[in-house]
């Protein structure tokens, strides 16, 4: 028989000013199953908690209802107090007499009645509570970092330096990400590669970090602390253990006219290539779609010149399976290309380029060795127009958000241009200048005041080519929306930062949520900015939303901190309030019929197919099985299950049914 204790808290006067607490305690004492019912001034105080604990021991209570504030406030407190007194903490429930009663109603009999109802409801519930044990899961102290840009590098180094293993997976042949393509960085104008490459090398050399480049995530299974990840290591056609990075193959390759991705198509590269000179690892890759041998079956010049015998034409993709305990998503962003803009000719004009292309033009290691030259004819542009918000903040283009980094890099571009083309003029069309950040506004002022950038507040309606010039037609809203026409030599579009291609697919593999722009969603915009809704998976950098370098690095260190916390214990403790599928003796095994409609509603892929076999190994039945490590306890499966084969601890069918019954049938 149930032996329930009811504890009515006055909360000073917060409850007792409106609710007649002693009356509620007296009435509650008459509920069947209640053996002890008291009221007290501050139940959450030390003496209050002792009161509960002593009553548990004295009256041999099997359940406790603390009627006080919201369970969202003090449920953990009282569950702990119960546990200390030897009662299973999940035999404690709270009736919300403060937030849901005393604070929102007047003092009268009806309010007392409501308080009594609420207590009765929880008494009936707690009678049906199950004693539960917290779920313990072991932790694999290896982190997976997806993406080798600046965020991934930072996260990997921080985790590795905390003493944990890290596996880094990068899609491209080299780590470095977009930052390695940048010329100089705002607001300090220090050389991007100068600050990044040492960290890239550090990644390669850190004994705690295992690096897989030219590799992608194939699948992720499991749950926090216990993920199993399959990595597809794409065939580089190079034996990495033999290659010494001499580069002879790349210089001897006869097929050199392939668009260079790193230079955004503004230069060519051979079919066997290292993306850029400082690449990590410094090992070439054969582009199978371009290589003459793969296309025609003849050539193999690289194989002939390679003294290390590292070329392997028959190399296949390799699937590597690794166990990891936590995952950091650092897959970064992409930008809209110029062909996204119909009003700017869908990228028809070679001299309308995007911001990233300008970075390469301005980079000393770029295709023009740092000289600003037009891609069409190599001339130095004397008049250059920068268009900020190309796509960003434009609902008509489906991109409502601000890409955040463009104001700053456009100012930087104008400065760099002026430094390189002294007699040139830079015009910048902008909507607003958003330069919130340390030394940021000073930087844009410098572009305007020292480097003579002509800022025009207004948008560009169209750009067309006429007689070799690019006619930029826009409005100057500070001059009464007057039409402005500039005959420019070159136009740079600060195109919107968008989610990386493949982000959606990755999100689906990882079962994390993403927004309508395919940026990954954080668990809470303020308080959980680097967590996802899936425990054990974290976010850093521009895969979440456009971010600049300092922000990405800060987030990456945040993620590293989170993962280090997770790895600081060998076991994880989780609330056991999860769904379970019923089990009975053979031949039924369970009332589950294996329709798996629960599987399609589970947001966490926690529901697995369990096969029941007879002694001869024949399949008898397929049943749903809920992985306790993955289930987060939403209970949607419970409501969907037609045969009522699933129930959820803490909110069981019997408990909820009894609550309704207790509220209405007395």
């Amino acid at each position: 028989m149930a032996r329930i204790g009811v504890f009515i808290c006055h909360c000073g006067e917060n409850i007792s000013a409106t609710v007649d607490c002693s009356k509620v305690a007296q009435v509650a004492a008459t509920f069947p199953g209640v053996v002890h019912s008291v009221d007290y001034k501050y139940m959450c105080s030390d003496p209050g908690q002792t009161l509960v604990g002593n009553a548990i021991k004295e009256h041999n209570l099997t359940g406790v209802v603390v009627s006080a504030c919201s369970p969202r406030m003090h449920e953990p407190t009282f569950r702990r107090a119960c546990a200390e007194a030897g009662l299973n903490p999940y035999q404690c429930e709270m009736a919300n007499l403060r937030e849901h009663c005393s604070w929102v109603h007047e003092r009268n009999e009806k309010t007392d009645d409501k308080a009594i109802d609420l207590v009765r409801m929880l008494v009936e519930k707690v009678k049906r509570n199950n004693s539960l044990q917290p779920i313990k899961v072991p932790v694999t102290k290896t982190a997976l970092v997806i993406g080798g840009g600046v965020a991934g590098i930072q996260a990997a180094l921080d985790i590795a330096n905390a003493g944990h293993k890290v596996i880094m997976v990068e899609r491209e042949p080299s780590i470095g990400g977009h930052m390695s393509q940048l010329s100089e960085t705002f607001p300090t104008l220090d050389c991007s590669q100068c600050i990044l490459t040492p960290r890239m090398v550090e990644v390669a050399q850190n004994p705690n970090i295992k690096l897989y480049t030219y590799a992608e995530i194939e699948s992720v299974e499991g749950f926090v602390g216990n993920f199993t990840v399959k990595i597809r290591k794409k065939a580089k056609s190079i034996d990495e253990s033999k290659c010494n990075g001499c580069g002879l193959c790349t210089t001897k390759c006869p097929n050199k006219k392939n668009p260079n991705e790193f230079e955004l198509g503004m230069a060519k590269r051979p079919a066997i290539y290292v993306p850029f000179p400082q690449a990590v690892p410094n090992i070439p890759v054969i582009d199978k779609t371009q290589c003459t041998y793969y296309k025609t079956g003849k050539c193999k010049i690289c194989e002939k010149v390679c003294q290390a015998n590292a070329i392997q034409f028959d190399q296949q993709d390799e699937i590597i399976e690794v166990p990891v305990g936590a995952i950091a998503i650092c897959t970064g962003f992409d930008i809209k290309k110029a062909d996204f803009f119909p009003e700017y000719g869908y990228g028809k004009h070679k001299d309308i380029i995007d911001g990233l292309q300008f970075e390469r033009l301005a980079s000393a290691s770029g295709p023009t060795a740092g000289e600003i030259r037009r891609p069409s004819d190599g001339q130095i542009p004397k008049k250059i127009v920068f268009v900020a918000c190309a796509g960003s903040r434009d609902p008509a283009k489906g991109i409502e958000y601000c890409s955040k980094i463009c104001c700053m890099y456009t100012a930087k571009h104008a400065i760099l241009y002026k430094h390189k083309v002294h007699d040139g003029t830079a015009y910048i069309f902008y909507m607003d200048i958003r330069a919130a950040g340390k030394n940021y506004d000073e930087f844009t002022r410098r572009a305007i005041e020292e480097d003579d950038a002509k800022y025009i507040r207004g948008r560009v309606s169209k750009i067309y080519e006429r007689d070799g010039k690019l006619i930029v037609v826009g409005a100057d809203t500070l001059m009464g929306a007057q039409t402005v026409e500039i005959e420019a030599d070159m136009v740079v579009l600060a195109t919107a930062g968008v989610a990386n291609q493949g982000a959606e697919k990755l999100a689906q593999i990882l079962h994390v949520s993403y927004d309508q722009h395919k940026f990954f969603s954080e668990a809470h915009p303020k308080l959980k900015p680097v967590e996802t809704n899936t425990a054990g998976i974290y976010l850093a950098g521009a895969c979440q939303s456009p971010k600049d370098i300092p922000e990405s690095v800060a987030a990456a260190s945040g993620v590293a901190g989170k993962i280090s916390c997770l790895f600081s214990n060998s076991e994880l403790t989780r609330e056991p309030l999860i769904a379970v599928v019923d089990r009975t003796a053979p031949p039924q095994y369970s009332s589950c019929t294996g329709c798996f409609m629960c599987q399609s509603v589970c947001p966490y892929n926690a529901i697995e197919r369990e096969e029941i076999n007879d002694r001869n190994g024949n399949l008898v039945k397929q049943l749903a099985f809920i992985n306790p490590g993955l289930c987060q306890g939403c209970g949607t499966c419970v409501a969907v299950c037609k045969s009522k084969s699933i129930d959820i601890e803490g909110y069981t069918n019997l408990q909820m049914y009894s609550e309704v019954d207790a509220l209405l049938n007395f």
Partner: protein
Amino acid sequence: MKLGFYPGCSLEGASREYNESVMAIAEEMGIELVSIPDWNCCGATAAHNLDKELSLSLPARNLALAEEAGLTVLVVPCAACYSRFCATQHELMHDENLHKKINGIIEKEYKGNLRILNVIQFIDEFIIDKLDDKMKFEFNKKVACYYGCLLVRPNKVLDFDRTEDPQTMDVVMKKLGADSIDWAYKTECCGAGFSVSFTETVGRLSGQIVEDAEHRGAEAMIVACPMCHSNLDMRRPEINKYNKKKSDMPVIYITQAIGLALGIDRNKLGLQRHFVPVKLKDFKPYTKKTEVENPQKMEVE
């Protein structure tokens, strides 16, 4: 084949040649265009600035009449009428209460089952595939296809072609053998309704259009809107005044261009009615290609 047809006021007035050429090519292709019985004004261009219900009721009545007459496809050559019809269809289908209200006003029930086509869509759907068999001449000229504003905007309502850089007319002209140029003024404003009130403005706006087309070597401009045509053709003196040079580049309707390729008599196409004389000649006789190339339709965003 019978299709519904809404002439509207311009095709019976200032733009008779448009009507004539539409009818001529339809006849040639064996298509019967049936006017909506008892049609009324579409409400352009003034009604939607004055009274929203009126601006919807006028087209709605026409649409309801067409539906009553058992029509399922309605060809609307005038771009202004087309725009009003599409806007009405869009609004009524997206607002149940408004739909009921308008039905009450026109005392008819428009169910919304009509497909409304502008002339280019009409050509694209019913004519372009038959051109190979019927073409007698190639339209071997450099042309600038001019769309204006109403054919492609607003994109949400019309869902026709790419707003900023439409292509359907170019596809048709290329099919006729023309060299359709890439230019910057395809969808710029011609001055539209200011044709009568502010001729100077029309001169400036249309002037820039004519100038760019001519600058890029176009021998003719191709249009599909009566208002564009009258601005670019009838207002040529104002245009020339603005451009400070004389231009005699003719402006012809796309239906007239097709008519010419089909070898239809110039007068039957109304070419004699233009202010800027249409002197185009020396069309190359057309021989059917053995390999039938499918006219490539540009991806519409």
